[in-house]
């Protein structure tokens, strides 16, 4: 964000809120950046000569006679191969002590891909976690969040998934990350020897919340560089999108906008969609896959943030502590990968989708049996078999510490079916029973 030769300077503010300032200025462009008392700010509204800017680092200590300089361009990131292995803040400045990146300066939050130029996602992303690969298979070009309560190990699972996935680049956008979590990711990536394929944009809880608004666009601009210019497979991790939405809420509130559900801005859906829809399978082989985290308040998915997210993303992954197995599992009922049928049975074995459905259906029967048990009713012989199956199924397949190949997952499922059920009870197509049933 170097100074430009052409700069206009103003020194009289008309209004200050915690997140925004307003002043009279002429000839400024929508979305243009400025510095306010040295702090970076962006134009969000003009009305006649009155211009409102959101100040990313907050307006603490900004006086009414603060110096405002307009920079003449929207936020940008310099892109080149030098991004690899580096850690940046929300403005794209290095925080790892390394040199500034040299490269082409690109506006962040750029245009959308022409939907007609997209390709249908078709490449499997194996993670080794059966709760994902077997029941909610991920596909490159997909966008999917973890819906998790704050106490669940979502960052750990996400790091595992990222490091096991077969991708060329991993780009981490950390929003409101605790310093501990930031160091966790850093250590995890270092320990895996994967630093050279990683780019991180980090905003920690120590930094002002409005800065977070830049993180996803920064991360995705870097991702587009690798995916579009270099035809690479890029995985973008965004954590935690709930904190991003909270920052949107702060700004819209300070601009006196009428809030809609859960005091979120009315444009929340479009704002989130702009980010998630950057996930793409490009015609020349490059792809951007987004795995995000949306933390929930006590599992409530009807809140505006997870609700709007669910309508945008291609499924969601739920983590849950399971008392039968004593492990954290990927919840098979609430989790969903919308793109799974693009690879199941096509890139994986033919029995995949039927085995998945039967496994989950029988697990649902076990849940019914459990409810009966809790209500003090006698269990039938079938109920008891279901309960035993559920425990095995959770331990050997749903648990997040599973790390096996997909064929092994399918074989394990067949083994469990044969152990507890008759072929008819699984409801699987006869041709598959004939071929795979483990008598």
């Amino acid at each position, binding site marked *: 964000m170097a100074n430009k030769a052409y700069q206009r300077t103003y020194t009289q503010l008309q209004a200050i809120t915690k997140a925004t300032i307003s002043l009279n200025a002429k000839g400024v462009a929508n979305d243009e950046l400025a510095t306010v008392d040295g702090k970076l700010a962006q134009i969000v509204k003009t009305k006649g000569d009155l211009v409102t800017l959101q100040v990313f680092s907050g307006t603490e200590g900004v006086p009414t006679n603060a110096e405002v300089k307009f920079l003449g361009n929207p936020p940008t990131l310099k892109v080149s191969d030098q991004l690899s292995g580096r850690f940046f803040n929300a403005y794209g400045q290095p925080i790892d002590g390394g040199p500034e990146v040299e490269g082409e300066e690109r*506006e962040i939050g750029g245009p*959308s891909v*022409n939907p007609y130029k997209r390709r249908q996602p078709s490449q499997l992303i194996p993670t080794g976690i059966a709760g994902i690969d077997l029941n909610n298979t991920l596909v490159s070009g997909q966008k999917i969040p973890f819906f998790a309560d704050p106490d669940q190990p979502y960052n750990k699972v996400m790091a595992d998934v990222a490091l096991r996935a077969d991708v060329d680049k991993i780009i981490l956008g950390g929003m409101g990350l605790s310093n501990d979590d930031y160091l966790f990711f850093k250590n995890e990536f270092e320990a895996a020897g994967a630093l050279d394929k990683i780019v991180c944009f980090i905003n920690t809880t120590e930094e002002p919340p409005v800065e977070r608004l830049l993180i996803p666009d920064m991360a995705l601009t870097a991702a587009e560089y690798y995916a579009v210019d270099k035809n690479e497979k890029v995985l973008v991790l965004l954590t935690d999108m709930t904190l991003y939405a909270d920052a949107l809420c702060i700004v819209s509130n300070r601009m006196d906008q009428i809030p809609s559900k859960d005091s979120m801005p*009315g444009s929340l859906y479009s704002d989130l969609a702009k980010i998630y*829809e950057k996930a793409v399978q490009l015609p020349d082989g490059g792809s951007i896959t987004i795995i995000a985290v949306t933390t929930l308040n006590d599992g409530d998915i009807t809140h505006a943030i997870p609700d709007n997210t669910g309508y945008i993303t291609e499924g969601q992954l739920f983590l849950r502590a399971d008392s039968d197995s004593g492990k954290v599992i990927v919840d098979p009922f609430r989790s969903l990968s919308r793109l799974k049928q693009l690879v199941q049975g096509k890139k994986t074995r033919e029995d995949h989708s039927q085995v998945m459905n039967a496994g989950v259906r029988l697990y649902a029967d076990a849940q019914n049996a459990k409810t*009966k048990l809790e*209500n003090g009713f006698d269990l039938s012989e079938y109920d008891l078999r279901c309960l035993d199956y559920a425990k095995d199924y959770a331990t050997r397949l749903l648990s997040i510490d599973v790390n096996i190949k997909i064929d092994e997952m399918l074989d394990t499922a067949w083994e469990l079916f044969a152990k507890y059920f008759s072929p008819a009870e699984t409801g699987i197509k006869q041709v598959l029973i004939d071929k795979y049933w483990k008598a």
Partner: protein
Amino acid sequence: MATKGIVTGIVSNLVTVQVDGPVAENELCFINLAGTDLMAETIKVTGNKASVQVFESTRGLKNGDSVEFLGKMLQATLGPGLLSSVYDGLQNDLTTMEGVFLKRGEYTDPLNHEKLWDFTPLAKAGDKVVAADWLGEVKEGWLPHKIMVPFSFKGEYTVKSVIEAGSYNIDTVIAVLVNEDGEDVNVTMTQKWPVKVAVKGYRNKPRPQKIMETGVRVIDTFDPIAEGGTGFIPGPFGCGKTVLQHAIAKQGEADVIVMAACGERANEVVEIFSEFPQLIDPHTGRYLMERTTIICNTSNMPVAAREASVYTAMTICEYYRAMGLRCMLLADSTSRWAQALREMSNRMEELPGADAFPVDLSAIISNFYSRAGMVELNNGKTGAVTFIGTVSPAGGNLKEPVTESTKKAARCFYALEQSRADQKRYPAVNPIESYSKYLEYPEIIEFLDNKIEKGWVEKVFKAKNYVRRGKEMADQINILGDDGVPMSYHESFWKSELIDFAFLQQDAFDAIDAVTPMERQKFMLDLILDICGRQFKFEDYEKCRAYFKQMINLMRQMNYSEWQSEKFNGYLKQLEQLLSENGK
């Protein structure tokens, strides 16, 4: 003299323009941003200030930038070549755009001007004609595409000449008409129509007379939609709204399908245009894409064009309806369109209605649904626009403004349910809550009597009642326990499960199960009603469960097998064998 103006305020895509002359509500304008023209639509005028919604990103726009008003509303271009096209919400052809990314201010022509069409005249010199009358036809794929007197023509015209049969491009003058003042007017193969105005040009709009088959059992049998009818599919995310809508698009008994992907995922649109060109229409044996137009304004494309996209799609349907064709419009999702209205209303600082939606939301929705329907054309032929919209209720709660407003406007209601989806009971349409008002229409009852068999609708209600009864029994069993209820409760419950598993559930990804023709639906329903009508004897509820599970399994295998094939009949035999052991 065109009205001009300058930009005086910008909040996201809402721009205030100071104008120097008259402006009309919904009038289009171009805002000049450093040489690039951004299209915008007037949505409010106060004094000499017009508020316009810009169909593009306003990044870099400055106060003082110049604006030129176009003196017209947003129009759709209509003519041969609309089918198989992929458009954005403003009807720009997405396939002819350069580069991977959408470029701001890039507007492409909706129709190909070079392509030649084989024209056959239908009218002759001396004929008296009015708007929407047929002058000639070209073959668009296998469909007879009528070239009509433009919808905008007022009064009566006399045909002076019609060009002879031959190959022409769309800009060729194919007819010369003389108006009431004796002036010559040229007609080409294309015309324009403002999308927000309903196309008239028909004699009347009778009540729907027929059912439109979709191959989806829970719809066709339980809650059928009429040709020219309206329906909506509300449901929380992950309940299979899109899968169901795609199934209807693939299998629906219509000549023309227009799919409006309004503010939804881009990959879903990609799925349509990568799969449809390979898929065969089960009714005609032609490629699906030949009868399909896609309007896509995905969630990351400019918000203001979302609203335009559904209107553009409806106008294209109405155009084909005027040719005497059966059209179907699928809009996914109308909630996104309502949200676009909310965003604008919000930025204009209007007083909000419920959930911050604009207060006239209900009126806008019902006005849009009313554009669907069957019509009798001036020449006595009929055409229809069937409209099915999806609704994405916030938090899955159906008591929200968009769902409630839509419920008032649409005649069929397909309630997708989270708990059914959780149990993978797809399509997750709740058979008890959902309804089709058309089952009450005497015309429709008569149609079904003739088409399927006398008394069909009564059978449907009988089946629905078994399901309702089963649900009540399940509630009792849950309260009192398996042992605490008489055996007949278990039997009733399992009969409803049989209907659910063997009939209502359908595998949209299985080549055979995905489409069930009406004849096969009748066969299966008869079979099921026969079973449900029997009295069984069981020693205990365990035996009852096991027995019904066996039946369910056999009937599911039947659903997966080719109709009346050896395999199908084999399973049927096994089922009959099983029934002969128990049940009278």
